[in-house]
């Protein structure tokens, strides 16, 4: 199952960067994100998987597609590729690849095989435990980041209203 998902994600990510049309790129990106959500579901993190689908597939991709439709319309044959940009991209991605591989090879993983938690088992992350951690002030509680993020979101909403209001 993991192999199917991994191959699916890899092929879709290649298609995302190789395609000429920007809307197609957004669609392939949707497949990549759905595949990642599938990985989370495979590991038993249903909450994380749902968040992935909701925020990325349902939110970000819709936002992308909307903004593509609103800005360029039908004539969106992508930018001409220049060799200079391509070489920069190649160098950067090579650096990233080397960093990634070196981290994977040197890091001491706790276990070599990941066993998926059983639905209904004790160690499953439930929505209740997430909620308690989110609002607790103890060690391991996330109340302060939670509040900071909510203030940030409120500021974003106010900013959007200020930009969008009629003058």
């Amino acid at each position: 199952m993991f192999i199917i998902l991994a191959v699916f994600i890899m092929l879709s990510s290649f298609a995302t960067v190789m395609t000429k049309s920007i809307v197609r790129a957004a669609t392939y990106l949707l497949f990549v994100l759905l595949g990642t959500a599938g990985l989370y579901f495979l590991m038993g993190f249903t909450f994380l998987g749902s968040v992935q689908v909701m925020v990325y597939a349902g939110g970000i991709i819709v936002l992308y597609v909307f903004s593509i439709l609103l800005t360029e319309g039908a004539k969106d044959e992508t930018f001409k590729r220049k060799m200079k940009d391509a070489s920069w991209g190649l160098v950067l991605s090579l650096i990233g690849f080397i960093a990634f591989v070196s981290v994977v090879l040197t890091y001491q993983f706790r276990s070599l095989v990941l066993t998926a938690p059983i639905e209904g088992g004790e160690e499953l992350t439930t929505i209740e435990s997430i909620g308690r951690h989110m609002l607790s002030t103890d060690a391991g509680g996330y109340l302060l980041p939670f509040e900071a993020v909510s203030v940030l979101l409120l500021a974003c909403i106010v900013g959007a209203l200020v930009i969008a209001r009629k003058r």
Partner: protein
Amino acid sequence: MFNFTTITNWLHSFLTTTCGFAEWGAILTESVLVALVIITLYAVFAIALIYMERKVCAFFQCRLGPMRVGKWGLLQVFSDVFKMLTKEIISMRQTDQFLHNLAPFLVVMASMITFACLPWNQGAHIIDFNVGVFFFLAISSIGVVGILLAGWSSNNKFSLIGAMRSGAQIISYELSIGLTMLAMICLTGTMSFSEICNDQYVNGWNIVRGHVPAVIAFIIYLVAGNAECNRGPFDLPECESELTAGYHTEYSGMHFGYYYLAEYLNLFICAGMASTIFLGGWAPLQIAGLDGFNAVMAFIPGAVWFVGKAFFVVFLLMWLRWTFPRLRIDQILSLEWKYLIPFTMVNLVLMALCVAMGWTF
């Protein structure tokens, strides 16, 4: 109550012991069986709903509806399906064929996964995570991408504008649906559909337990659900005479049929969610004190209760659709953002207050 787990357990032991399948083989076989059952149910419900829609519409307009094909027009929908299947799928020049063909499948996929979330009976849940409600909302938001892609890949200004309209409408009304569901989760204290149903089986239906805020949430959910399915007074894609229809103008044959199918199934899913969250799902009608009546009601299987309640809500939604005139897009959006969202937020606070003070039954 009839518990469906007896059947699933029997099937599992039948496959593993009698047929001698390995554990993974048995699970694979069961998954394929469940998938076949879902697809069959999907088709059957679509046919039933289309027939019902035509008859209910006729009823509200003092007509008879389809009467010619078969007894009471029962075979009308089947002949429509065959007509749809034999129509040519027109491919247009200068469009993105891949996205044009992909878009209906995205919409159908989203509605099929949400269809699998419905609790049919005690023990008959296909997808039952502990974050069930959240998963349901997440998956249902994929359909918007399909609609936007359909409008864009048609290479047609009117389809593009129609896709924008429908997309904006669906994204807006998702908020109301999420907030009303949040109010009910506040009451039940769990997000898993099986536990929500079990809870209502033991303690009574949510709409009775939550009284005032629950009834407000139910009404808002019905309005928002109608808009979410692109139906009712919000069915802008349907008005081809004024707006050149919506995102599916350029589709023909079965690709258009998929949108049609997804629309009706979304209607059923919306009604099924309403019956799960507000009306008790498969939980039978129980009135405290009337023991004989309760025993008779509990004798009816849960699936019958669930489907019955869902069709009752479907009837309410169709009533709404054929009674109200269509809204303009700016009216639709201002209804959502200026009236429904403030109402649902106040309602959420009210529900939280009721639960915190113990004012529920």
